[in-house]
């Protein structure tokens, strides 16, 4: 509701209205003046609330892209960037563009099916090492989305 510099109190306003009816020779209002004012305030209050809600919804629509990123499904497993074998230690450098390498889930199987855990794991540098067995080694590298990269390393 717009506020004015000058305001007449409700009692005086009602008094003037009754003078108006009396002077014009008309029957006065049956609904009390203060009730008319309350009714207006309620109407304006509802309008204001509806307007504020509409503004909030509009703002939410515009700012929502800042808070919600569209979900991109990670369907690719980690990649092996480099590998090297030095003094029977197989060193593998990994990368994953999606959800990231799940280092705790990395394991290998030797020819006999025995599960071998990495001998070291440097998550900061994304490098893992295995003590290379005499024969081949199947290495399984999962990412955080459940994709698994399988690599087979054979004895050179």
């Amino acid at each position, binding site marked *: 509701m717009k506020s004015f*510099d*000058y305001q*007449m109190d409700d009692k005086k306003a009602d008094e003037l209205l009754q003078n108006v009816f009396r002077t014009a020779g008309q029957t006065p209002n049956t609904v009390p003046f203060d009730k008319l004012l309350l009714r207006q305030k309620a109407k304006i209050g509802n309008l204001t609330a509806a307007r504020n809600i509409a503004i909030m919804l509009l703002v939410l629509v515009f700012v929502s892209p800042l808070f919600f990123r569209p979900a991109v499904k990670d369907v690719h497993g980690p990649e092996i960037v480099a590998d090297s074998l030095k003094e029977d230690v197989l060193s593998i450098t990994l990368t994953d563009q999606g959800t990231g390498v799940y280092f705790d889930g990395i394991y290998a199987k030797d020819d006999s099916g025995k599960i071998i855990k990495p001998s070291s794991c440097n998550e900061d540098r994304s490098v893992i090492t295995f003590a290379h067995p005499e024969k081949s080694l199947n290495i399984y590298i999962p990412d955080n989305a459940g994709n698994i990269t399988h690599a087979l390393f054979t004895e050179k």
Partner: protein
Amino acid sequence: MEDLNFLYLSSLVRKAQVGDSDAFAEIYALTYKKQYNFACHYLRDEYLAQDVVQDVYIHALKHLGEIKETGLFVAWLNQITFHMCFDLCKKKDRNYGEINPLALELSEDSYIDHNPEEVTENRDEIRRVQQAVNALPPPEQRAIVMRFYNDMQIEEIAKATGVSRSTVKRQLLSGRDMLQKMLE
């Protein structure tokens, strides 16, 4: 007033035209604050403003049946208030309104430096100017009269009429242009 629902008000006017006192009371409740605020700014006297507001609504109630376009009720009411304020000032001061606004620099505040008497020498000319001012559209007429007959600042006119300062300036400029054309 900006919260007024004009369609609703229009329906109230139609009811009041057939003698519904509650509808008229609601119209009064919806509109008296703006009229009172205008009268206070114009007359600079709250008691006189109360008298004017009362007279405005007496006039409105008596002549409500003459309104064809009920949607224009507020504009009609604004004009009644304006004319009643003007007439009251005229009653208090015989020379009120006897200035040629074109002789003043309408777009500048410097008009205050002019002595109104210097530009009111020719009575016929004054009468001609008054007729031209009366022929202006209501917003321009109000702005010109309040600014130059009633010595009100743009800020004060804006507050009285419930519009922005830039709107008042625009009304003053277009009012001056119209007056110039009419008086050529």
